[in-house]
């Protein structure tokens, strides 16, 4: 495969003025979202999806991806200066980044976060480039049984990695599947769960759901939050890490890049999880783990590299297999579907401009983010001072107009508000949204694949096990579930022993 020819084509696409502009806009909006606590990249992308109707598929994917990895850069700013994570993947950066700021080392903390993100982002895009194409060729041999098995494995891993409870994650995933069944069945034309409402005949749109759960719910939750944000009053000083800082950080950056990239590929393995695992890894690998939580620069470098690397990792299954492993990937999936493009193994060969344009834009975007983040730190600090009571109504207003703009219908606004309240209650009662959204996106693919498989096999379920790939994937799913129950039981036994002693 002519990688260099394709990457040159990608850069030619990216350097078109409109794509450059949207790449920059995406990085800027992403950084802003990352800086501002309250709304994350998922909510922002879902709110801005309707805006991308009028632009080309390449440009919209470049713009939306820019928001995603831009938010990873921006999140570290508030974590370090305010001790409030701008978005979930920067929670861990608060632990050591804020302590460094209090010790007068805010500059090196911000600097290593930006440089680490840049290095990880660049390396992971290279890996995305080299891994996606061979994987997509392999996936061309996938049939309905393989897709069924892959989605079952994906949902299993997603619920296994649930941070709160496997049972809760499973309930949310099944609820997401139920929502996906609303509408007219594609194969038979029968209406399902429409309650006689004509607007539901096409099913519930993904945009009102994600805008409600991630956009509106965040607004509703943040109205509860009180208190002023106070920024560390410290001179930023030199933003460039010292030689000793680089000596301490090159290994955490390398490990963080690997951890983030491979976790990004796994369903449920989000940038947030990657940053937590990277932090735990660095603490374990450190000769002085007692420094962590007190201003260890490795505690900033590793997680910030991991969360950026996970962005590119999450695009591998999306482009190679057509399976989004995370909520943001699901939103990019929705964006492509809106433009009439089916994500999957064919996208790299049939729409190479989208894949290679995106890859090239990510290289460029990483450079833009270095430029936006470091010199403009002072500006971002000022943005933090905008009162929440002003910002949140504006965000809500954006959501309302965005939802209306999908189909020029207030029905979608109503659906969005309903899911906004549901999302708010989910947050208050500790139910995760990711399993619901991913199951909603994957539900139609799972159903079609399963029904086609049973037609092919004339009703025999053996088809899923007789084919090597699908059989392996299903066995893997079974082992993961068994390991969960086994380790849970072991943990319960250990807990009981500890209590007794």
């Amino acid at each position, binding site marked *: 495969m002519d990688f260099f020819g394709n990457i040159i084509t990608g850069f030619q696409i990216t350097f078109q003025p409109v794509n450059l502009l949207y790449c920059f806009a995406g990085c800027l909006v992403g950084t802003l979202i990352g800086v501002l606590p309250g709304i994350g990249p998922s909510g922002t992308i879902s709110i801005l999806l309707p805006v991308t109707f009028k632009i080309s598929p390449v440009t919209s994917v470049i713009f939306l991806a820019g928001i995603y990895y831009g938010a990873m850069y921006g999140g570290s700013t508030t974590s370090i200066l305010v001790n409030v994570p701008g978005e979930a993947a920067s929670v861990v950066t608060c632990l050591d980044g804020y302590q460094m700021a209090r010790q007068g080392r805010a500059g090196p903390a911000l600097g290593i976060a930006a440089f680490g993100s840049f290095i990880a982002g660049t390396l992971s895009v290279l890996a995305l480039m080299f891994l996606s194409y061979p994987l997509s060729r392999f996936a061309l041999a996938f049939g309905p049984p393989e897709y069924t098995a892959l989605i079952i494995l994906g949902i299993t891993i997603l619920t296994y990695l649930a941070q709160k409870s496997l049972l809760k994650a499973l309930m949310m995933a099944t609820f997401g599947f139920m929502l996906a069944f609303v509408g007219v069945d594609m194969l038979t034309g029968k209406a399902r769960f429409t309650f006689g409402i004509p607007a539901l005949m096409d099913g519930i749109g993904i945009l009102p759901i994600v805008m409600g759960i991630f956009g509106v719910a965040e607004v509703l939750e943040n109205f509860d939050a009180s208190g002023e944000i106070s920024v560390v009053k410290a001179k930023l000083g030199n933003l460039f890490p010292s030689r000793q800082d680089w000596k301490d950080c090159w290994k955490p950056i390398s490990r963080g890049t690997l951890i983030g990239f491979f976790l990004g590929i796994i369903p449920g393995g989000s940038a947030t999880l990657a940053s937590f695992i990277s932090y735990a890894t660095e603490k374990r690998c450190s000769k002085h783990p007692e420094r962590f939580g007190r201003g260890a620069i490795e505690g900033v470098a590793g997680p910030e590299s991991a969360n950026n690397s996970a962005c590119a990792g999450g695009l591998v299954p999306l482009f190679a297999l057509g399976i989004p492993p995370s909520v943001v990937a699901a939103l990019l999936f929705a964006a492509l579907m809106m433009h009439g493009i089916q994500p999957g193994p064919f996208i790299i060969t049939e729409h190479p401009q989208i894949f290679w344009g995106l890859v090239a834009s990510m290289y460029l975007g990483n450079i833009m983010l270095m430029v936006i983040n470091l010199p403009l730190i002072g500006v971002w600090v000022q943005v933090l001072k905008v009162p929440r009571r002003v910002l949140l109504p504006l965000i809500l207003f954006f959501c309302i107009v965005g939802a209306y703009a999908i189909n020029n219908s207030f029905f979608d606004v109503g659906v969005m508000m309903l899911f906004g309240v549901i999302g708010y209650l989910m947050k208050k*009662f500790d139910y995760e949204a990711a399993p619901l959204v991913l199951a909603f996106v994957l539900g139609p693919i799972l159903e079609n694949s399963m029904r086609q498989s049973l037609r092919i096999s004339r009703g025999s379920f053996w088809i899923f096990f007789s084919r090597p790939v699908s059989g392996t994937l299903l066995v893997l799913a079974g082992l993961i579930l068994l390991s969960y129950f086994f380790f849970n039981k072991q943990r319960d036994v250990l807990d009981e022993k500890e209590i007794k002693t």
Partner: protein
Amino acid sequence: MTKERGGGLIFLLVGIYGLIFSRLLSLGKWNDPGPGVLPFVISMLLCVSGISWFIAGKPKRGEKSDINWGRLARMLRTPLQIVVLTAAFVLVITRTGYLAGSILYLFLFLLWVSHYTPRTAVGMALVMGIGSWLFFVKLLVIQLPTIGWWIF
């Protein structure tokens, strides 16, 4: 009633609804699955997980129910205010057009939910309403409700 039991009950009810109505759809045969098959299976899974969560949420001996209904009502007050205001906005906007409707909505929002003074709320509503009109209608060319000759 604990939180877990409440959640389990809700999912169980959704699952039962799914079971009933997916049976009304054709389940088909194994070699030609109908539109009701997967909804039926998923509904069963939902019922099983709802029951499991309901059982897991059994309060321990001596433990009181941990749903504080008063606190729940207070928690839902602001979201309900926002939902009611948004519903009113949706009803009004087709009569007033986008610009007037949005300024009114933002004014009431800033006054009632964000607790700004009336003077501040009016000023901010005007700026935000006109700004949003310029952004959505003029820049992004989104078709928003207008009323006849009233260009806004």
